């Protein structure tokens, strides 16, 4: 399943809760303010790294660039554009958008 989060990890607990529920084989995509969770030095870093062996973590590049956070992305996080976002949605049978 694909988990999509759009809230900053230092503002809301959505990233934290999502990462607590995600299962190996699933994917997580950070968009909008959640792109901060894909970068180095945040409150979410340890938890993102902890799930990464079994979970594919993606970040939406346009949202990342819009916030000037390019170049700070955690190793192993994959960048996707809007086309890649659509591909992720179609590749997974279910999708949850964490509010």
């Amino acid at each position, binding site marked *: 399943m694909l988990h999509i989060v759009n809230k900053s990890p230092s503002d809301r607990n959505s990233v934290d809760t999502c990462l607590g529920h995600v299962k190996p084989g699933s994917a997580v995509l950070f968009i909008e303010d959640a792109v901060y969770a894909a970068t180095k030095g945040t409150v979410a870093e340890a938890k993102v790294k902890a799930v990464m062996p079994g979970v594919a973590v993606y970040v939406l590049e346009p949202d990342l660039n819009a916030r000037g956070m390019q170049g700070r992305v955690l190793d192993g996080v994959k960048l996707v554009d809007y086309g890649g976002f659509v591909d992720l949605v179609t590749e997974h049978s279910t999708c949850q958008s964490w*509010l």
Partner: protein
Amino acid sequence: MTDEMDMEEGGVVKKFMFVNRKAPYGTIYALESLEVVLISAAFEQDVSLAFVDDGVYQLMKNVNTDGIEMKSFSKTYRALEGYDIEKLYVEKESMEARGLTEDDLIVDVQVISQSEMGDLMNEQDVVLSF
């Protein structure tokens, strides 16, 4: 996606989960979710409700909204059984982080761990977040 589906009365039954993560009354999410759940009952799907994070506050007993000029919908959770919605899951960690126990809740629920909740989400055909 399709392997979990059964044919029942000529229709396809899918597993739907409504994930509730917001406290009631401060925002409209909890009430909206409850209304969607009640409407979805008409389609006779396999519906589960999950209460996670502040969503567990939706099930508090002793709600009295007289002073805030809002209709209380807390008793409506008790009507869910009559709508054949009987799968109510509350996350243990969320309840504990708020100092709550099952005795504080207005309906009977199944208390499960975060890890079990993750497994349940994974089994669904459709997950709707509120």
